[in-house]
C-alpha cells in the first residue's frame, strides 16, 4: 500500500482540559486518504474527546488541525460537516418516522418550484445504496422498520451524500451480528477505495486486525503509540493500552468468604446478557470486567428486577422466585446505578430525601428525623455538603456517589450490586469508596462490582469474571488475573494462562 505524502487530515499537539482534568495532552493524529486508521484506548482514554475536537463539538485549548493541507478549525459540528468530516455515532441520529430517502437527503431535498421531486430523490438514494452494495434497502421504507445494521448504512449514505472526506465510525459493530458486521466491513472497504480517510474506533481488537491499516493507541489522554496493524501483534497493542503503574490506594483486608448468598445459573436477560452464571459469597468482592456494551449493567439490572429475564435461575438468600426491585430491597439486595444523574439520584431533591428514599420511616415523617439520619451518614462517609437539606445537584460527583452509596448502607442491604461506583469522581472520593467497599466486605456483605477500570478490579476484588458480548466467563481468583489477561478476555481473545 502506498501512503500519499500529505495526510487527508492531521491533528497536531491537541490539548484539551476540563477544569483540572487533562483530557487530551499534546496528541498527534493523522490519517491519509484511502486509509483505515483504528483509534484504540480504554474507556476514558480520550478517544471521544479527540473525535469531538475533530468534529467541531469541542474546541481544543492548544494545537492545530489541517484538512488536505489547509487549516481546519471548526467552531461547531455543522462547519466540520460542511468541510467534509462526518461522524457515525453509536447512537444513530436518524429520524425514525421519515423514510430512508428523506433521511439521506434531509436538508438537501430536491425541489422544483417548492415541490419535492420524490422520484428524483428516490432514484438518487437508490443509486447511492447500490454503490454501497445495499440495493436491498428500499428508499421508500421508514427508518423505524430497518434493522440497526441497515440504519448504519443509511447513515453512511447520508454522510457520503454531503461529499465527506473524513468518516469517523464509533464502535460501529457493538450492536451488530457477525454477519452484519462482515457486510459492514465490505462497505468500509469500498469507502476506502473511494479515497476516504476512515477513523475506526473499536474495542474489538480482532476486528481491527481484520479491517484497519494503521492504529493509534490513546492512554490517559496521550498518544501511547501507533503503527501498522499488520506488523503489530495484538498482545503488543494491549500492552500499549494498559501499560501503567498500579497505584497503591487499593486496600484489601484479610477476608474470609462465608456462605453463598447469590447464585445464578445461565441467566439471560432481554436482550442482554446472553448467559451468566456465578456464585457470590458473603464477605467477598466479586468483580465483573469487560467492555462497555458487553452486558454487565444489564446483568445487574436483571438481578435487581429492573430488567426482564428471559431464562435462567437466580437464588438470592434462599429466594428463587423472580422479584421486583421493592422485593429485592426487602430481601436485602441493593443496586448502585452507573448513571447518577438520570437514575441513581433525584437531582431536584435534597440530600436527606435522596438518602432515605428507599426506606422512609412509617407514620408521620418530620424533616428533623430525616436530617438526623442524613447527618449520621454525612459524618461516617465524610460527605462534603452544607447540610442535609442541600440539593443533590449542588454536590460534586464524588459526594453525590457517596450519598447514593449511603442509601444502600442505610437500607442495610446484605448484597450490594455496584455499577461503575467510581466513574467520573475525584481521587479522594475514590479512595474513600475503596476503603468503604473493603470495610463492607470485611463485615460480611457480598459485593458484586462492575468496573471498566482494570486497576480497580485488580486492586479491590477477590475474584474477577469477564463479560464478553453478553457471556460471562468463569470467575478467577485475582492472583491469576492481570490487566493483560483481563483485556485479552474482554476483547474476546483466548487466555493462555
Amino acid at each position, binding site marked *: 500500500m502506498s501512503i500519499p505524502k500529505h495526510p487527508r487530515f492531521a491533528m497536531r499537539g491537541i490539548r484539551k482540559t476540563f477544569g483540572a482534568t487533562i483530557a487530551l495532552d499534546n496528541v498527534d493524529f493523522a490519517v491519509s486518504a484511502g486509509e483505515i486508521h483504528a483509534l484504540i484506548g480504554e474507556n476514558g482514554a480520550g478517544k471521544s474527546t479527540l473525535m469531538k475536537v475533530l468534529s467541531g463539538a469541542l474546541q481544543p485549548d492548544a494545537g492545530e488541525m489541517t484538512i488536505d493541507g489547509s487549516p481546519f478549525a471548526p467552531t461547531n459540528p455543522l462547519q466540520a460537516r460542511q468541510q467534509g468530516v462526518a461522524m457515525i455515532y453509536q447512537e444513530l441520529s436518524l429520524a425514525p418516522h421519515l423514510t430512508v430517502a428523506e433521511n439521506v437527503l434531509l436538508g438537501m431535498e430536491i425541489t422544483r418550484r417548492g415541490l419535492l421531486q420524490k422520484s428524483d430523490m428516490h432514484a438518487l438514494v437508490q443509486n447511492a445504496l447500490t454503490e454501497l452494495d445495499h440495493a436491498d434497502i428500499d428508499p421508500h421504507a421508514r427508518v423505524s422498520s430497518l434493522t440497526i445494521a441497515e440504519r448504519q448504512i443509511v447513515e453512511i449514505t447520508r454522510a457520503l451524500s454531503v461529499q465527506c472526506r473524513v468518516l469517523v465510525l464509533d464502535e460501529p459493530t457493538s450492536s451488530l451480528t457477525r454477519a452484519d458486521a462482515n457486510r459492514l466491513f465490505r462497505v468500509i472497504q469500498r469507502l476506502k477505495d473511494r479515497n476516504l480517510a476512515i477513523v475506526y474506533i473499536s474495542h474489538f481488537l480482532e476486528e481491527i486486525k481484520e479491517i484497519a491499516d494503521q492504529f493509534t493507541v490513546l492512554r490517559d489522554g496521550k498518544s501511547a503509540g501507533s503503527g501498522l496493524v499488520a506488523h503489530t501483534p495484538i498482545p503488543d497493542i494491549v500492552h500499549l493500552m494498559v501499560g501503567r503503574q498500579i497505584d497503591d490506594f487499593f486496600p484489601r483486608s484479610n477476608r474470609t468468604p462465608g456462605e453463598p448468598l447469590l447464585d445464578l445459573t445461565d441467566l439471560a436477560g432481554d436482550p442482554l446478557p446472553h448467559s451468566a452464571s456465578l456464585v457470590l459469597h458473603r464477605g467477598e468482592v466479586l468483580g465483573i470486567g469487560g467492555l462497555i456494551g458487553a452486558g454487565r449493567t444489564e446483568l445487574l439490572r436483571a438481578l435487581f428486577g429492573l430488567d426482564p429475564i428471559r431464562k435462567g435461575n437466580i437464588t438470592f438468600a434462599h429466594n428463587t422466585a423472580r422479584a421486583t426491585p*421493592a422485593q429485592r430491597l426487602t430481601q436485602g439486595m441493593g*443496586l448502585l446505578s452507573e448513571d447518577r444523574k438520570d437514575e441513581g439520584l*433525584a437531582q*431536584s431533591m435534597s440530600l436527606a*430525601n*435522596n438518602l432515605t428514599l*428507599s426506606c422512609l420511616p412509617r407514620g*408521620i415523617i418530620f424533616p428533623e428525623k430525616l436530617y438526623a439520619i442524613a447527618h449520621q451518614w454525612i459524618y461516617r462517609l465524610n460527605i462534603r455538603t452544607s447540610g442535609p437539606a442541600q440539593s443533590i445537584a449542588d454536590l460534586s460527583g464524588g459526594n453525590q456517589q457517596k450519598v447514593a452509596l449511603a442509601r444502600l448502607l442505610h437500607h442495610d442491604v446484605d448484597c450490594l450490586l455496584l455499577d461503575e461506583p467510581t466513574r467520573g469522581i475525584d481521587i479522594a472520593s475514590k479512595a474513600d469508596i475503596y476503603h468503604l467497599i473493603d470495610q463492607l466486605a470485611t463485615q460480611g456483605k457480598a459485593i458484586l462490582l462492575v468496573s471498566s477500570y482494570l486497576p480497580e478490579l485488580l486492586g479491590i476484588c477477590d475474584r474477577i469474571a469477564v463479560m464478553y458480548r453478553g457471556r460471562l466467563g468463569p470467575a478467577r481468583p485475582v492472583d491469576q488475573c492481570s490487566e493483560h489477561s483481563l483485556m485479552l478476555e474482554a476483547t474476546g481473545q483466548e487466555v493462555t494462562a
Partner: protein
Amino acid sequence: MNHLSRFAPLLGLFAVYGLFAILGPDSFSSGRNLETIARQTAIVGTAALGMTLVIIAGGIDLSVGSIIALTTVTIAASLQADLSPPVAALIGILIGALCGFVNGLIITRFRVVPFIVTLGTLLLVRGIAKGLASEQKIDAPLTYLIDLLAALPRGAWWIFPPGVWLLIILALLTGGFLAYTRPGKHIVAIGSNENTARLCGIRVEATKLLIYTLAGTSAGIAGLLQFSRLTVGDPTVAVGLELDVIAAVVIGGGSLSGGEGSVLGSVVGALIMTVIRSGCSQMGLPNWVQEIVTGIIIVTAVAVDRLRHRER
C-alpha cells in the same frame, strides 16, 4: 433563595391584591369582598389540591371539569331519589374518585401518557354526565347542601361559609400528606426522577393509581361545592375549568415536568386568579381585560420560575 421562591406566589398575591386595593373602588378591600373572593376560589382551589399531586408526580389531569359536572348531576339525581344529603354528597364524591381511579388504571396498565388518557376521559365523563341527565339540568330538592358556599348572614362568627373551611382543612391535610408521609415523599420522588424511584423500590404504578384516585376525589369534592353553588345538577357546568385548575397549580410554583409544586402555592394561585377577576369586574373592566391579565400572570409566573432555575 429557597425560602424566597417558596413564598413567591404569596408575594404575588399580595402584590395583585394591593394593586387593586389602590386602583379599585373602596368596596374591593372590604371584608365582605374578601369573603366573596374566598367563596369564589373554593371550587378551583379544591380541585387544585388533587391536581397539585398529579403535577408534582409529573402527570396531568384534564378530566377535572367533566368530573365536577358528573358529580353535580349525581348528587342532584341522588337527592331526587330521596337519599339523605350526606349520602348524596358521598355518592357524588365517590363517583369522582371512581373516575380518577379509572384514569390511573388506564395510565398505569396500558402505559398511555396521562395527557391522552385524561383527554379521552374528559369527553367520556362529560358524555356520561349529559346522558345521565338527559342533556338538561336536574332539579334537586333544597337541602342544607346548598348552604356550603352560600353568602353568610351579616355578622356571622364563623367568617367563611363551610365550603371555604372545607378547602382550608383539606389543603392542610394534603399539604401534610405531601410533606410528612411516605406516600407523599414517594409522589415527589416519582415526579423528580421516576428511574430513581424505581431503583429505590417505590411501587411506582400503585402510587400513580393512588394519585389519580385522589385527584378524582378532590374533583368530586369540588363538584359538591359546585352543586351547592348551582343548587341543581348541570351536565354542562365547568367546561374548561381544568385549565383554571392547572393554571392555579402552575402559578403556585408547580412544574409540568414534575418534582415541584406545593399545596399552599396552588391555593394561592387559585386566589390570585379570583382576585384579578374580582378586581377587574369591580373596576368595571370588561371580561376580555381579565382574560388578558390572567394570561399575562400565568406566562410571567412560569417565565420567572424558569429564569430562577437557570440562575442555579
